[in-house]
């Protein structure tokens, strides 16, 4: 007992001493700490563990090039175990105990919402790499995935104008991202003269595996003589039995195409894609994109994982872009200080993997090209359409009544994530409602 007291006192003193000398040392040769907040266990491990490896690869590459500001990068990996409240705890641990300079993490919107108050309170930096429902803009979060106007809206435009779709099935998993996205899409479709009876909305629980009835209903809905398409926000591995049922019930992409917002190369690697050829997905990146930057990235990834068949996907590209944006901002600011980086990063642009540039906008979203790909028999997508130029992410949708008048601009004079241009005030009551 006595011994313990002595040693703990010693520990405390030395900790204080270390803490006091920390800022001076940190600038010199301490490594820059990069927090990685992705689930490595639980239901989301399937998607998120790949992103952890992506970050580790990017950090390793950067260190091989001499690090950043002459300092090495040190990854700090934590496992929030697909448990939403645990995300907040782990984020707090990263910022308070590990004192990381930046966090790359989260997949589901609910986990991001849980982390949000923590990064805002402790003034951290979070790069969020997944496509999401929008209606949010935080001073401390950088959204490198697509906002609805960078994925859902262009996808519907493509179907409406290029394929001539007149009837719509909006199918999704029952949680915040699909519900908000479908609300936006429904408003958008009605704006474009689609009648209520030509829209069918369907929600299913997480991990739904019995799709017989829904698929047969879609088949019936689609046999009314008008061209029909399914817009799918079905999440995660529920897609595998869904597509399998589509194939078995003989729904052909040429008759009723399904366009998915959450199905990428990784999800397809779990199924035989031969019956799915021609079904669509909308993303900002596909593994099949034909650029040298992309081929290099794939080769590095294959080498890093040691798996000849490893696939890359859109959120991985988002992390690639996010990491490079942060790196350039740190170089520009000359420090990893959060406030300096936050200011420096706006306007920074870095190459993406599809041959263009991604620029950080004042609303903390980035510019992205929108690509529509058709599934091929080898589990890859072939790009059939893309936006002529990149699209800037819009935090607040123009098609929802609550958020129509809101803008987000984190540059100096305004510094507001939900400025109401009608009421000329920051953070009106309506904005709060819309973000719920």
């Amino acid at each position: 007992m006595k011994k313990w007291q002595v040693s703990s006192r010693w520990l405390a003193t030395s900790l204080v001493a270390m803490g006091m000398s920390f800022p001076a040392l940190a600038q010199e040769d301490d490594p820059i700490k990069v927090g990685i907040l992705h689930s490595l266990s639980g239901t989301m491990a399937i998607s998120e563990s790949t992103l952890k490896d992506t970050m580790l690869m990017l950090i390793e590459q950067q260190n091989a090039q001499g690090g950043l500001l002459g300092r090495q990068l040190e990854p700090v990996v934590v496992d929030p175990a697909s448990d939403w409240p645990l995300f907040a705890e782990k984020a707090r641990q990263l910022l308070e105990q590990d004192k990381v300079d930046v966090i790359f993490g989260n997949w589901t919107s609910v986990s991001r919402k849980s982390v949000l108050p923590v990064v805002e309170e402790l003034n951290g930096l979070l790069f969020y790499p997944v496509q999401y429902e929008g209606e949010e803009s935080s001073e401390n979060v950088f959204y490198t995935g697509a906002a609805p106007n960078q994925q859902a809206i262009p996808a519907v435009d493509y179907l409406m104008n290029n394929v001539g779709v007149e009837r719509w099935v909006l199918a999704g998993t029952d949680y915040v991202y699909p519900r908000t996205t479908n609300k936006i899409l429904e408003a958008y479709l009605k704006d474009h003269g689609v009648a209520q009876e030509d829209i069918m909305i369907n929600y299913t629980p997480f991990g739904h595996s019995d799709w017989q009835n829904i698929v047969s209903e879609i088949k019936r809905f689609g046999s009314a003589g008008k061209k029909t398409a399914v817009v799918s926000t079905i999440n995660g591995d529920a897609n595998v039995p869904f597509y399998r049922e589509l194939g078995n019930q003989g729904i052909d992409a040429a008759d009723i195409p399904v366009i998915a917002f959450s199905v990428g190369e990784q999800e397809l690697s779990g199924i035989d894609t031969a019956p799915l050829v021609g079904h669509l997905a909308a993303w900002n990146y596909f593994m099949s994109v034909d650029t040298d930057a992309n081929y290099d990235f794939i080769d590095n990834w294959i080498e890093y994982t040691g798996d000849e068949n490893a696939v890359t996907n859109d959120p991985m590209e988002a992390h690639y872009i996010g990491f490079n944006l942060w790196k350039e901002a740190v170089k520009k600011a000359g420090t990893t200080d959060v406030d300096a980086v936050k200011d420096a990063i706006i306007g920074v642009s870095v190459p993406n993997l599809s041959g263009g540039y991604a620029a950080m906008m004042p609303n903390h979203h980035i510019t992205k090209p929108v690509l529509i790909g058709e599934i091929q028999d080898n589990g890859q997508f072939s790009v059939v359409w893309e936006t002529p130029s990149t699209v800037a992410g819009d935090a607040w949708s123009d098609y929802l009544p609550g958020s129509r008048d809101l803008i987000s601009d984190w540059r100096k004079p305004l510094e507001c994530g939900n400025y109401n241009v009608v009421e000329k005030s920051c953070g009106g009551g309506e904005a709060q409602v819309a973000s719920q």
Partner: protein
Amino acid sequence: MNPLRTINFILLFWCFVTLAPSVFAQQTGSAEQEVPPELAALGADSYAAKGEAIQALVASGHPRTRTWLTALLDGKLQRLEDSGRFVIVTENRGRDWTVIDAVDDAPLGEVSRRNIDRITINNALRNQLRSAMAILDLDAPSERERLASADRLLGEVDANLAEPLAARLEAEESPAVREKLAQALAIHRLQSGDSEAISDAIDTLSGSLNPAVRAALNGVAAGEGDAAEAAQQALASIEQKLKLNRAAETLYFGLSLGSVLVLAAIGLAITFGVMGVINMAHGELIMLGAYTTWMMQQLLPGQPGLALILSIPAGFLVAVFAGIIIERSVIRFLKGRPLETLLATFGVSLILQQLVRTLISPLNRTVVTPEWMSGSLVINEALSLTLNRLYVLGFALVVFAGIMLVMRKTRLGLEVRAVTQNRAMARSMGIRATRVDIMTFALGSGVAGLAGVALSQLTNVGPNLGQSYIIDSFMVVVFGGVGNLWGTLVAGMSLGVINQVIEPWAGAVLAKIIVLVFIILFIQKRPRGLFPQKGRAAEG
């Protein structure tokens, strides 16, 4: 000749043999490819131009039309970046793809995928290609191909195609193909405007359940006059038939979902129902069965069907083995302490999940569905039963019958029933109760493994597989009446049907909730489930 020279000679020869093809490939690679204009046109940039090129190619009657169209449809028709040569990719896995010349089939070796550009198509072109190939296939020797292409042409016949199609109808011998061709022509006649032709066409079409026919009739019915009335009548009679089919379909969906529930629950009905052990790791035993299927398919690449059949005994054994370990290491120490058993087995389930995540991968594994299990059994044009689910339904019934046989007709079954009814009495009669415990638990676990093998064909094989079925399994066992295997069968099947009947109008989320609420209310009224244990056993 001294040995060294011999070896030298052999080496030299070997070098020549292995290098020669690549040298030749190089030569053919550098030679100019004479591209026929029909093929060159397919390399256009815009989809519209490609569409015209496909039409022109079909019209030209070039001998390789079919090869090129097939390759284009499969995305295998590509161009080399440097020379612009048209090639057909024969193997497109990995970084280097094997290609052959599109004009003369000359093998060109392997080319890096970086240096090769795919001639892309979209769904509209895919439609056009399929129709174009359907027309080519109308004269195919096999009846099945002719039928498929006639089916394809329903609703796609235009003035140009009507005449050759009518000629084909004259020459056609197979009645099924004749019917399809007649329908395809009738749909075309609906648009002709001639009232006699229309009413004749409606006669031909009435009674057909094909969606293309219905869409065409809908178009006529929306108009006015005699033709519209006739079309409405035809549609009404079709609708009648469809309703019947729909009811049959819902019943099939329900039974299929029910069979999945029964499979998942039947193992639990033995361990929980008969032995009274609350085994929260039951779902993970299902998962082990599914992973065994995956493992077998890895061991026997290229033979998914054989691997699946072998997985049935293998999955059973793996789960039996895991079950014995769980029973010996955890459950036997917690006899008669249900709460502790529940917590301990829940822990075991988490350990098993994370074990799979760490040892295999957190990602889902691909279990291939064998050819004979994919697609569906077509009863008529509005009703087809998906084959994988049909097999699972049959498998569930076989497994159930097998277990009934074991429980009723074997010594093990007799002993199990004796031990569960009165443990002390059974022991005093010389039955080794501990051994029976192990055997029973192993049997229940093995059946869970079998369920896993079947489920690998329906759902994801991943670490979370078991979790999604554990609640449902308990629900079925409790609803059916603890300790009664027939109860499990009836409960599973009826819950499946109830769920599928509610789902179309309530949605999948609400349907699940309604079923749960229904069970809660039912258990309030009849705590012992559908088929309660009677007599002295019920007291125990």
